[in-house]
């Protein structure tokens, strides 16, 4: 990157339209995001230090940091933080693992690969509401196919969406099913960048499937897996629809993540200010993870540069 710019620079002026050109190009998008994401988020932060109610959204008065202070010792809130972390960790780990394995399996030619690939990516395209409807039906206590299958195997029925011990696993299954194809597609794309000679060399050395994967493929995939992992993590922190429509945060609050509490406090209990404070803390969690990612990324880049 740096090299190519150095060789390019002396040849010709880079900005024929003057220094304002990039602002003209990016201006609309930047302004748009300020208006439809920046301003609302600032408004959310401002709401979080008030006692605003849903019935009178413009009528709250300032309460300082009371909402945040109330959250610090709030058991329900702390539990929602733990739930969010568990949910995020399991969906990220599950989708990265399954997505990578699927991509590796589907990368090599075999009869029927085209069809297998088509089916494997479909969950990504199915609208969340339809996903929720079918999983609610699969997990239905009395007539669902999950329990029918278990009974046929001689194992008793489970209350997938009604028993607190199965609420989280059920939500995880539905989520991982829906998001894994994204990981698979990106990894599949990254696999195209692994030079064919490396596979060849591994074959000559008599390396098996597993050692080829760990020594050749995985190092090539790591940068991709890191950025996909980051995206998956911050997306799970804010994922709302699939959890809300499947369980509404239940049974007994076991799937109530931070964003579910935000929505419940705002629209269920009408406490907009309090809800906003929860949302802001959730956002800080995402920011912290992003920060950690960029620190790790800069370190690896520096290490690679030293090694090279």
């Amino acid at each position, binding site marked *: 990157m740096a090299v190519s710019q150095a060789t390019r620079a002396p040849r*010709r002026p*880079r900005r024929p339209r003057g*220094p304002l050109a*990039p*602002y003209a*190009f*990016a201006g*609309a*998008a930047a302004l*748009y*995001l300020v208006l*439809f*994401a920046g301003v*609302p*988020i600032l408004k*959310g932060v401002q709401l979080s230090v008030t006692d605003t109610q849903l019935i009178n959204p*413009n009528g709250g008065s300032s309460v300082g940091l009371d909402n945040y202070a109330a959250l610090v010792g709030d058991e329900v809130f702390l539990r929602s933080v733990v739930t969010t972390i568990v949910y995020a960790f399991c969906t990220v780990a599950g989708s990265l693992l399954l997505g990578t394995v*699927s991509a590796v*399996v589907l990368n090599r030619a*075999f009869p029927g690969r085209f069809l297998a690939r088509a*089916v*494997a*990516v479909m969950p*990504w*395209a*199915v*609208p969340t*509401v*339809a*996903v929720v*409807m*079918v*999983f*609610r*039906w*699969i997990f239905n206590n*009395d007539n669902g*196919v999950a329990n029918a299958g278990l009974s046929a195997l001689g194992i008793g029925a489970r209350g997938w969406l009604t028993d607190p011990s199965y609420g989280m696993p059920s939500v995880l299954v539905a989520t991982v099913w829906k998001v*894994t*194809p994204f990981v698979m*597609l*990106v990894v599949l*794309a*990254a696999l*195209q*960048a692994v030079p064919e000679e490396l596979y060849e060399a591994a074959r000559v050395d008599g390396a098996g499937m597993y050692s080829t994967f760990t020594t050749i493929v995985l190092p090539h995939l790591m940068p991709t897996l890191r950025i996909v992992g980051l995206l998956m993590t*911050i*997306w799970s*922190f*804010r994922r*709302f*629809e699939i959890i809300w429509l499947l369980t509404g945060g239940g049974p007994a609050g076991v799937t109530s993540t931070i*964003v*579910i509490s*935000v929505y419940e406090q*705002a629209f269920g209990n009408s406490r907009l200010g309090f*809800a906003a404070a929860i949302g802001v803390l*959730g956002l800080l969690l995402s*920011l912290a993870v*992003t920060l950690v990612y960029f620190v790790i990324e800069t370190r690896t880049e520096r290490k690679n540069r030293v090694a090279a």
Partner: protein
Amino acid sequence: MIARRNLGVGVRTLLATLLVILAGFPLYWILNTAITPKDTLYTGGQRLIPDVSRAGHLFSILVTDRSFLRWITNSTVVALGTTVTSLLMATLAAYALSRYRFFGKGIMGFGFFATQMLPEALLVVPLYSLFASLGMLNQLYGLVLANTAFAMPVATFILKAAMDAIPYEMEESARVDGCGALSILQIMVVPLIAPSMAAAAVIAFFDGWNEYLFATTFITDERKWTASTGLASFIGDFLIPLDTVFSGAFLFAVPAVVFFLVMQRRIVSGLTAGSVKG
């Protein structure tokens, strides 16, 4: 060696089969449920292989619920609107981020990325009051504007990565010939990044097509509901037979799945442009 290779093929085939079953079953179950009679569904009589002669029931919601078609139309409007506004702004922004160095570029890149962290559940309240004051509640274009805030940054990243892969030297000659930056973008860059444009378009389209929270909060007029809102209103509603509801889920999912499959090759190559660059 040969034995090991064969073993590899066996394991691969087994894994691929398992993958197809896991990924495909819930989709198949939507179809299966839609064509199984409702009395059978509620008595635990649903079979793994349904009565195929009832395939016509896949479309039963079109007969029983006339508002469904209107919801689908609304979803289409929102999805297309989101795609067009996102791609227009994203193409221009990606060109700036890819080709220029300018003050504020780092902040802009971070800002675009940061949108992916913003929880809709937190944004929905301030956006609601913003839209209320602008008179944009119950308007489909209001949904387009809200969805674009999430779809456009993703499109920008995909397009920027694709543009980064195009050698700058190609544009220089055009520039010497007196072409402006905008016409270079139009004539040279856009055709070269067509696969990535397609990938970004599909992703933006799905954002609009699938979105539920904004659609449900901002649109209260039933005639302007999107299919997400309309179908979600059936959840837990026992007045509408389950097979009909699943006919709706099927018809809602099919356009997205087909559209995706048609574009699949371009999506993979569009994403490749991004990941190769790393």
